[in-house]
């Protein structure tokens, strides 16, 4: 399967061109061989008649020896030295091809004359054309019978002469074809490239796009074939755009629809004047609902950003400081101290909002599961190949066999263990995953949980 339209077209046209060229050559050589055959056969007949006339004439005047002399002795001389036409005045110009043309005269079952003398065809029995093998050579022979003088005249021609002519004609045809082929190929390649330019243009337009750009591609002045493709792409973009907007609107609406009644519930509860021991469970339930809602919304928002992460240089120290400052009221409530420890280069390509969501979830967990009076520490350690973010608490920790499970949605170790819906760590895992970061849960020295998130550079 060829994966390139250009290569496909090029190879296809080339194959067809090759086939038609070969066919033309074969037909031409077949035709020319046929024509050559006819011309040469006719000349064989003519020569035979002429030779017959000569032999009869010389027989009647008893000068056959003279004829033999001029035909055989002169021509039979060293022909190589005469192969070129001599200068004017030379008596016996010859040609090397003379040996490829032969004459024979048989009379009264006797060979009367043979030129050249090396021509050893057997005594003729029938008149007409024949193709024979003589001393390893193919010959075309014409035999003429004169019953008046009981004379057999035979003219012969080596087939090689004819084949050579046909080959020459074919060769003369091939060379221009072979010469034009590379030029043709080059032109063809350019034409195809030119023809595929709109495709290249579209792919460049798509490549240079921002990942959030779902605007339609321009479809004016496009070739007919691409019109449909671009149309389909644009319709897809349109659907995607709508889906994303719907999703965004949904999370917005859901945020509003869920948070406003929750806010009302809390405000009414707080001003209800219920004694603390009655209201505290209600307030805890509300707190759990609140957290669940914000985590569900965070998850809903995370899914679409899986493929459309907007990374920028993010100062993890700044993000961490802000998250810690924001969570201070929660820490105060649990009488937990928060600390940030920072070392090395802690700036990394990431989506800052998501980093803060990740850290907020880790810290909320750490604060909730910490004893009053203990400290939760956030560590940032910039290393050449990665950035290590640590959240270290001194709470109860998580048993090794549960560590994999807590990273999944809605998994809670102990339902009675304070508020939370078991979504926090799965949000952490998802944010880490879309950044290519890894999450590890380990023990803190002296008890507690340490979460390590390694962000590759």
């Amino acid at each position, binding site marked *: 399967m060829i994966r390139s339209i250009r290569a496909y077209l090029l190879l296809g046209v080339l194959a067809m061109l090759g086939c038609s060229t070969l066919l033309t050559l074969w037909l031409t050589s077949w035709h020319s061989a046929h024509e050559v055959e006819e011309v040469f056969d006719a000349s064989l007949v003519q020569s035979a008649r002429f030779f017959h006339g000569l032999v009869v004439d010389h027989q009647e005047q008893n000068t056959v020896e003279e004829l033999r002399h001029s035909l055989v002795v002169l021509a039979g001389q060293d022909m190589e030295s005469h192969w070129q036409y001599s200068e004017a005045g030379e008596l016996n110009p010859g040609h090397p091809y003379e040996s490829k043309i032969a004459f024979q005269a048989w009379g009264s079952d006797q060979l009367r004359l043979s030129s050249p003398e090396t021509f050893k065809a057997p005594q003729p029995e029938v008149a007409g054309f024949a193709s024979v093998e003589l001393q390893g050579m193919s010959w075309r022979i014409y035999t003429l019978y004169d019953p008046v003088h009981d004379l057999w005249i035979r003219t012969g021609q080596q087939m090689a002469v004819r084949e050579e002519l046909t080959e020459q004609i074919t060769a003369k045809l091939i060379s221009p074809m072979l010469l034009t082929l590379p030029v043709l190929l080059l032109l063809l390649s350019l034409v195809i490239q030119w023809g595929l330019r709109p495709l290249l243009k579209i792919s460049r337009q798509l490549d240079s796009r921002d990942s959030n750009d779902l605007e339609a591609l321009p479809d004016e002045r496009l070739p007919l074939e691409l019109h449909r493709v671009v149309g389909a792409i644009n319709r897809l973009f349109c659907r995607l755009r709508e889906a994303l907007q719907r999703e965004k609107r949904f999370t917005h609406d859901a945020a509003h629809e869920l948070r406003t009644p929750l*806010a009302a519930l809390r405000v009414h509860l707080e001003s209800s004047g219920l004694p603390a021991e009655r209201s505290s469970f209600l307030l805890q339930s509300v707190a759990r609902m609140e957290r669940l809602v914000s985590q569900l919304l965070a998850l809903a928002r995370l899914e679409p950003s899986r493929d459309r992460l907007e990374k920028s240089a993010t100062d993890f120290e700044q993000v961490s400081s802000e998250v810690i400052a924001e969570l201070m*009221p929660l820490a105060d409530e649990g009488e937990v101290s928060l600390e940030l420890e920072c070392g090395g280069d802690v700036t990394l390509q990431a989506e800052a909002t998501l980093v803060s969501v990740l850290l907020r979830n880790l810290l909320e967990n750490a604060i909730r599961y910490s004893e009053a009076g203990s400290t939760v520490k956030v560590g940032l350690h910039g290393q050449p190949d990665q950035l290590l973010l640590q959240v270290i608490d001194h709470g109860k920790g998580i048993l090794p066999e549960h560590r994999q499970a807590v990273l999944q949605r809605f998994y809670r170790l102990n339902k009675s263990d304070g508020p939370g819906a078991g979504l926090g760590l799965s949000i952490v895992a998802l944010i880490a995953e879309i950044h290519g970061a890894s999450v590890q849960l380990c023990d803190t020295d002296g008890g507690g949980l340490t979460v390590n998130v390694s962000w590759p550079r």
Partner: protein
Amino acid sequence: MQLLLVEDDTLLGQGIRNGLSDKGYQVDWVQDGESGLAGIRDLEPDLVILDLCLPGLDGLEVLKTVRHQHNPVPVLILTARDTVEDRIAGLDLGADDYLLKPFSLAELEARIRALYRRSQGRQDESLTYRNLSVDLKARSVMLDGTPVALGKREFELLVLLMDRRGEVLTRRKLEEQIYGQDDLESNALEVHIHSLRKKLGSDLIKTIRGVGYRMERE
């Protein structure tokens, strides 16, 4: 203190009004943007609590109009949208603070008080915190009635922390506010904090290690 609450949700509006009235605030409550604008103009409240998601005129539109009329009334935004863009949009349009739903009444009240104090502080040009009082106009500080001499940067730092008492101010934020674009030595902030503690008491400013500083709520 007279408050104007612009909140379309009946349950939440009622809850906030009841809760704040119990604490002694005088609360006027309207349920859409147009009435909100009219209320701000006619009632001249000390502070506006503005929900962003309103029928008709949107909360951000109300805010834009108010600021366009050069009305400096402090505005606290209530929003259910927690994305960074949403928050920035509100603050850019001139909101003084925002509170994400759901919130506790105590938090709302603390924010109201802080906002009010800041707006009043700017008018009265004085701030007090425990046994400390600061005259913003004269740039003088009194501890238990005794004047204390502070450097320019120390004074600005103190006012900033007092103004936002209860909040943790990150080192970066403090440095941006106090030193701006000036070149500063990396420990300039620590030096000034140390000096403030020496002059005004060691438990005045709390350190959040690695993060920043804060003054606790009274």
